[in-house]
C-alpha cells in the first residue's frame, strides 16, 4: 500500500506538534539545588526564595502572643495574637475577637502545646495557657488564628503548669501555680494559706471534631505551687506528672520559706481514672465543673517526692523515664515509670498527705544525674539522650538516659556527655518533637533569659536571646543567635510539611451570616438608632465608600474582603474612632461603634493592597443629634 511511505512525514509532523504542545510559557523557574557545607553560617542560611524546614512556635510570655519563626534561619515570620489586642492584624477590634478577649487586654503565655494524634504531632492545633488570667487558648493551624479562649477556669488561679497535650489530644492538662480560697471569690486571709487555700489540676477536654475546649474534670490539691507537667506515653500513657515547689505551703517571702524542704511533692495523675470518675459521678460540682477530691476518690492522684523545689518535668520518648530538673539541687532526678507503677500497685508508700498516698522516693528513683547548677528543663533527641537547661551555670548539658551500666550507676558523672555555653541564663529549651514518641533529633533551641551585651544596645529594656544548636553530632555545636520580643518561655518545633495552612478563605466556605460578595448586596440600612452597613473591600475601593449616621447611633459595619488571591489583604481604619480591622482574602469582620461625636470621619484601607491603595478610602458622615446646632 502506498500509505507505508507516508508514515515518516506524519511522524515528523506529530513530533513537531508534540514538542510545541509541551512548550513552557516563560516565568516558570527550575528548582535550585542547595550546596552542603559544615560551616554553621551556611547551615542556617536559607537563600532568598527558599523556605525553612521547621516551624518554631514561641510562647510570647507576658506579651500575650505567640511568635512564629522558622528553623534553621531563626527568622521571625509572624506574630499570632492570642491574649492581647494586635492592630497589625486587626485582632481585638472586631466583635468576634473582642468577645474572645473578654475583659482582659493581656495574658501570660508560657507553654505552647501542639495537638497530637497517635503520640505524634498532627499539625491541627496549638494550645497555649494564660498563667495570669487563668485561660487556655486554641490556635487553629489551618489559618494560624486564635479561635477559642476558655476561662478564667473555675476554681483555679495562675495556670502555669499548662498546656500539656495527651497523645490523642483527648485533654489539654493544666495545673495551678497559685492557690486561692475556693470557690473563687471567697475571701480568706493569706495567713491561713495552708488551711484555706487550694491548688487544682484540671483536664480541659478537647472535642475531636473541631477542637472545642470544655472543662472535663478537676482534681483538688493542697496549696502546693504546681510548676510544670508532662504527659505520659507508651507504658505511661494515661498518666501525667507535675512538679511543685512550696510543699512547705508558705505564703510570704517564698524565696526563703518555700525553699526549705529537701524535697517537694510532685504529682502523679492517672487522668484516665479521673475521666472515669466523672463518668461514674464520683465528683462534686464546684463552680459549675466536676471536681474530684482525691482523698475520697483514690487511684487518681499520688504524690512523688522530688528534690528540691524542682522545676521542669519531662517524659522521654519511650514513656518510661521521667526527668525532673532539681532547680535548687544540681541534679536531674530520673524516675522509672515501671517502678512508679509497681510502687502504686504494691502500695509502696511513705505515708500520705491529706489522704493522698506518697510514693516512696527510693522505690521510684532510677538515679540522680549530676548535671550542674540550676537544672530546669529536659528535652530529648530520640537517640537515648536528654538535654537539660542549667540556669545558673548558663549551659545546656547532654546526658545519657537509662538503661545505665553498673559502672555508670556507680558514678553517674559518666553519663553527662557534653556541655555547651549559652548566653545567658537559659530558661526553657526545645528540641523538635521532644514531647512526642518520635523526636526529630537535629536542632535544639535554647531560650535564654538574659541577652545583655549580645546585641546592639537598645536601652534598658532588653530583648530575649534565642540560640540554635546542632545536636546531630556527639558534641553540640552552636549555630546561630537570634533575638526575640519578650518573652518566650517554652516553644514547639514542628516539620513544615505537617502543617497545612490555607492562605485564602474560599468564598464557598464562607459561613459568616453578614458576608457580602456582590456590590448589589452592599449598602447602609437604618433601623431606629441602629445603622448597619454591609461593605465590600476590593482593589482598590470600598463599596459603598460613604456611611451616613447620627450622633447617638450604634453603628455596625460588616466588611467582606472579596479577594480570593493570597496576600490581597485589606484593612479598614476609621480616623479618630479607635478602630482598625484587617480583613484577609475571603474573610468578613464586624465592627460595632457607639457614635458620640459629630463630624466627618474618613476611613481608609490600612493594609497595603495595591498600586491604588492610597485611593482606597471613604467617609463616615455623622450628623449631630436632632435638635442640636450643626457647629459646636
Amino acid at each position, binding site marked *: 500500500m502506498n500509505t507505508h511511505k507516508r508514515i515518516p512525514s506524519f511522524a515528523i509532523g506529530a513530533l513537531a506538534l508534540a514538542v510545541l504542545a509541551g512548550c513552557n510559557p516563560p516565568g516558570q523557574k527550575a528548582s535550585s539545588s542547595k550546596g552542603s557545607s559544615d560551616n554553621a553560617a551556611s547551615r542556617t542560611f536559607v537563600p532568598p526564595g527558599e523556605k525553612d524546614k521547621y516551624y518554631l512556635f514561641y510562647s510570647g510570655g507576658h506579651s500575650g502572643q505567640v511568635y512564629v519563626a522558622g528553623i534553621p534561619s531563626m527568622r521571625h515570620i509572624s506574630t499570632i495574637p492570642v491574649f492581647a489586642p494586635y492592630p497589625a492584624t486587626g485582632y481585638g477590634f472586631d466583635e468576634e475577637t473582642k468577645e474572645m478577649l473578654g475583659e482582659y487586654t493581656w495574658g501570660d503565655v508560657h507553654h505552647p502545646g501542639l495537638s497530637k494524634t497517635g503520640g505524634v504531632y498532627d499539625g491541627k492545633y496549638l494550645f497555649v495557657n494564660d498563667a495570669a488570667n487563668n485561660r487556655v487558648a486554641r490556635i487553629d493551624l489551618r489559618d494560624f488564628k486564635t479561635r477559642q479562649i476558655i476561662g478564667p477556669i473555675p476554681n483555679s488561679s495562675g495556670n502555669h503548669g499548662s498546656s500539656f497535650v495527651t497523645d490523642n489530644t483527648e485533654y489539654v492538662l493544666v495545673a495551678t501555680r497559685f492557690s486561692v480560697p475556693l470557690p473563687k471569690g471567697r475571701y480568706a486571709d493569706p495567713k491561713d494559706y495552708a488551711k484555706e487555700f487550694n491548688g487544682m489540676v484540671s483536664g480541659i477536654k478537647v472535642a475531636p471534631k473541631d477542637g472545642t475546649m470544655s472543662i472535663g474534670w478537676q482534681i483538688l490539691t493542697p496549696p502546693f505551687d504546681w510548676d510544670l507537667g508532662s504527659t505520659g506515653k507508651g507504658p505511661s500513657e494515661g498518666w501525667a506528672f507535675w512538679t511543685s515547689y512550696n510543699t512547705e505551703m508558705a505564703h510570704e517571702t517564698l524565696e526563703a520559706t518555700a525553699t526549705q524542704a529537701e524535697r517537694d511533692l510532685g504529682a502523679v495523675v492517672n487522668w484516665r481514672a479521673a475521666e472515669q470518675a466523672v463518668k461514674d459521678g464520683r465528683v462534686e460540682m464546684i463552680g459549675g465543673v466536676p471536681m474530684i477530691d482525691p482523698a475520697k476518690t483514690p487511684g487518681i492522684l499520688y504524690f512523688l517526692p522530688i528534690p528540691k523545689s524542682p522545676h521542669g518535668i519531662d517524659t522521654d520518648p519511650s514513656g518510661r523515664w521521667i526527668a525532673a530538673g532539681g532547680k535548687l539541687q544540681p541534679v536531674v532526678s530520673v524516675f522509672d515509670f515501671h517502678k512508679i507503677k509497681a510502687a502504686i500497685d504494691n502500695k509502696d508508700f511513705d505515708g500520705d498527705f491529706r489522704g493522698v498516698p506518697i510514693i516512696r522516693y527510693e522505690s521510684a528513683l532510677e538515679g540522680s544525674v549530676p548535671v550542674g547548677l540550676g537544672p530546669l528543663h529536659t528535652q530529648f533527641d530520640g537517640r537515648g539522650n536528654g538535654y537539660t537547661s542549667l540556669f545558673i551555670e548558663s549551659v545546656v548539658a547532654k546526658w545519657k538516659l537509662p538503661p545505665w551500666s553498673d559502672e555508670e550507676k556507680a558514678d553517674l558523672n559518666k553519663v553527662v556527655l557534653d556541655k555547651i555555653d549559652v548566653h545567658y541564663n537559659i530558661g526553657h529549651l526545645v528540641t523538635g518533637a521532644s514531647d512526642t514518641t518520635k523526636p526529630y533529633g537535629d536542632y535544639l533551641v535554647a531560650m535564654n533569659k538574659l541577652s545583655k551585651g549580645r546585641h546592639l544596645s537598645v536601652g534598658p529594656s532588653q530583648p530575649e536571646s534565642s540560640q540554635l544548636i546542632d545536636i546531630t553530632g556527639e558534641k553540640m555545636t552552636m549555630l546561630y543567635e537570634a533575638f526575640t520580643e519578650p518573652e518566650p518561655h517554652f516553644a514547639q518545633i514542628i516539620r513544615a510539611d505537617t502543617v497545612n495552612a490555607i492562605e485564602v478563605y474560599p468564598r464557598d466556605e464562607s459561613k459568616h451570616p453578614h458576608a457580602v460578595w456582590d456590590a448589589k448586596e452592599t449598602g447602609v440600612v437604618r433601623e431606629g438608632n441602629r445603622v448597619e452597613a454591609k461593605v465590600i473591600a476590593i482593589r482598590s475601593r470600598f463599596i459603598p465608600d460613604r456611611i451616613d449616621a447620627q450622633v447617638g447611633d450604634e453603628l455596625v459595619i460588616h466588611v467582606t474582603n472579596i479577594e480570593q*488571591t493570597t496576600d490581597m489583604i485589606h484593612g479598614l481604619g476609621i480616623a479618630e474612632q479607635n478602630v482598625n480591622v484587617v480583613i484577609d482574602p475571603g474573610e468578613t469582620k464586624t465592627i460595632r461603634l457607639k457614635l458620640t461625636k459629630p463630624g466627618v470621619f474618613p476611613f481608609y484601607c490600612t493594609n497595603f493592597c495595591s*498600586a491604588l491603595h492610597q485611593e482606597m478610602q471613604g467617609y463616615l458622615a455623622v450628623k449631630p443629634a436632632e435638635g442640636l446646632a450643626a457647629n459646636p
Partner: protein
Amino acid sequence: MHEFLRREIFFLRRPLNIWSRLLLLLAAGALVAAIFLPLWKIHLVAPQYAEGLSLDIYSHKLVGGNNGQDLHEINGLNHYIGMKTLSEADFVEMKWIPFALGVFILLTLRAVVFGRMANIIDLGVLFLYFTAFSLGNFYYRLYSYGHHLDPRAPMTIEPFTPVMIGSQKIANFIQTSLPQIGGYMLGIYIVLLFAALWLSRKEMP
C-alpha cells in the same frame, strides 16, 4: 485548457478508498474533540504572580485557572488600565462556533458516506474559510480589547494588541498565548483531510 478541465473533473470524481474514509472519520472525531477541549490558552506571569494567571478559551466558554479565580484576578488587574471586563456573555462567537463545528462534523460524515474527492475539496475550502475567519475574529477581539481602553482609567498605557501566538511583555507581565489541544485538533483536521485526499488520488472513478 480543455485537457486541464477534463482532468479536473476526472479528479473530482475519484472515489475515496476505505483508508481515506477512515481518515475522514478520524477527522470528524478531531472536530468533536475541538468542541470540548480548550482551543487556546492565554497565560500571564509576573514576579508577584510567579505561578501565573491563565485563561482557557474553549469553543463555547471562557474558563479562568485556579477554579475560575484567575479570570476575576485578570479582570481586576485590567480595570486599572481601563480594559473592558472579560465576560463570556460578550463573546457571541462562543454561541456560534460549536454550531459551526457541528455542521462540519456532519459534512465530514457526509463525505465518508458519499465518498468522492469533491467532498474533500468542499470541506477543505469551507474549513479553511472558517479557520481564517475565526483567527481573524480572534485577532479582532484582541485588538479591540487592547485598543478601546477607558480614558478615565487610573493608569494610562499605550493601546496595544495582546499577542495572539507567542509572548510579549505588558507592564510587569509576560503574556503568552498558545494554541491548546483543541486548537491542535483543528490543525489535525486539515492534515487528515489532506491525507485522505492523497491516499485516494489515484483511485479510478
